[in-house]
């Protein structure tokens, strides 16, 4: 009995000690309300667009022709990035599907179509915990992502970790520095007045420290995504999140 209690304590303890916070928890009540009401969250416009694109035959085939209803994607986005010959972000997976199975052209990063498709796929995992994929190839990818996260860069000579690990919860100008967990991508950012991917956000941060942003789809950005999703492992997905 005591052993069982101990085992339970070990299971429960990390959860109790978890001081990770989604950006949702530190934003204002009005922005929280905007995210939580599906009739007021503008990100749902992209989800609806994605539902229409899911069944549209691009090239010879639609997504639905292979996968069936988009609900079959439940849980999928919570595992990404994955490894399939190479590290693969959700955007890259969709484009690989397009080129190899649909006979369609790849969609550009941040195009409204790709944002709509990633939004509808990730939306199926809303509320599910982020579950980093168990593929052993991803270990090295995440380690590289963590190295990049801790590497100083740009004219301001700042690493991601200096803001989002060391100083999270403090203020930078009028903003609270979030811990930087990618729990709701693609997100509707008020600053963007639209939807954007995690890679857009990462490039945005690089611009802020006056660094040359990594290219969309680059190994560096996918490695950072893989590290950040593992760092947020267990936290629920919120797509489409709203952020200031």
């Amino acid at each position: 009995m005591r052993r069982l209690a101990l085992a339970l304590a070990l299971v429960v303890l990390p959860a109790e000690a978890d001081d990770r916070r989604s950006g949702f928890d530190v934003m204002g009540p009005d922005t929280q309300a905007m995210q939580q009401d599906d009739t007021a969250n503008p990100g749902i416009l992209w989800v609806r667009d994605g539902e229409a694109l899911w069944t549209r035959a691009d090239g010879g085939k639609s997504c639905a022709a292979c996968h069936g209803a988009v609900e079959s994607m439940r849980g999928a986005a919570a595992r990404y990035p994955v490894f399939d010959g190479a590290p693969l972000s959700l955007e890259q997976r969709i484009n690989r599907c397009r080129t190899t199975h649909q006979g369609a052209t790849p969609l550009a990063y941040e195009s409204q179509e790709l944002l709509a498709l990633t939004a509808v796929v990730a939306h199926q995992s809303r509320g599910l915990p982020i579950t980093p994929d168990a593929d052993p190839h991803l270990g090295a990818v995440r380690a590289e992502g963590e190295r990049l996260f801790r590497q100083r860069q740009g004219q301001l000579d700042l690493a991601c970790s200096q803001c989002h690990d060391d100083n999270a919860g403090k203020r930078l100008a009028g903003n609270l520095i979030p811990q930087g967990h990618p729990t709701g991508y693609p997100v509707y950012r008020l600053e963007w007045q639209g939807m954007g991917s995690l890679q857009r956000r990462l490039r945005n941060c690089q611009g802020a420290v006056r660094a040359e942003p990594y290219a969309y789809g680059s190994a560096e950005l996918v490695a950072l995504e893989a590290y950040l999703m593992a760092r947020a492992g267990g936290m629920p997905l919120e797509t489409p999140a709203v952020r200031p």
Partner: protein
Amino acid sequence: MPRTLINVPQSVPRGTVFEIKTLVSHPMETGFRPDESGRLRPRDIIHTFVCTYNGEEVFRAELFPAIAANPFLSFTAVATESGELAFHWTDDHGAIHTETARITVT
């Protein structure tokens, strides 16, 4: 073709006031924002929104560039009889986008 989200209760008791919420995808380009080359992007906004209930206007909004992108509006109407709510958004190009929703009054 803009995407819209419309929230109207399906069924409402006669005589009660119900809430209508609408969201439409639109950049609401102000005309005051420069593009990458420094030139001002031309103004492109939805300037008029009208809601009719069985053909009769119940709410109208004139919108200006100060309205946020992807305009959201919520307002109310009295449930008089079952029928159709129609929503019309008109932009600077003169394009009118229309959506409808059915309502049952009990």
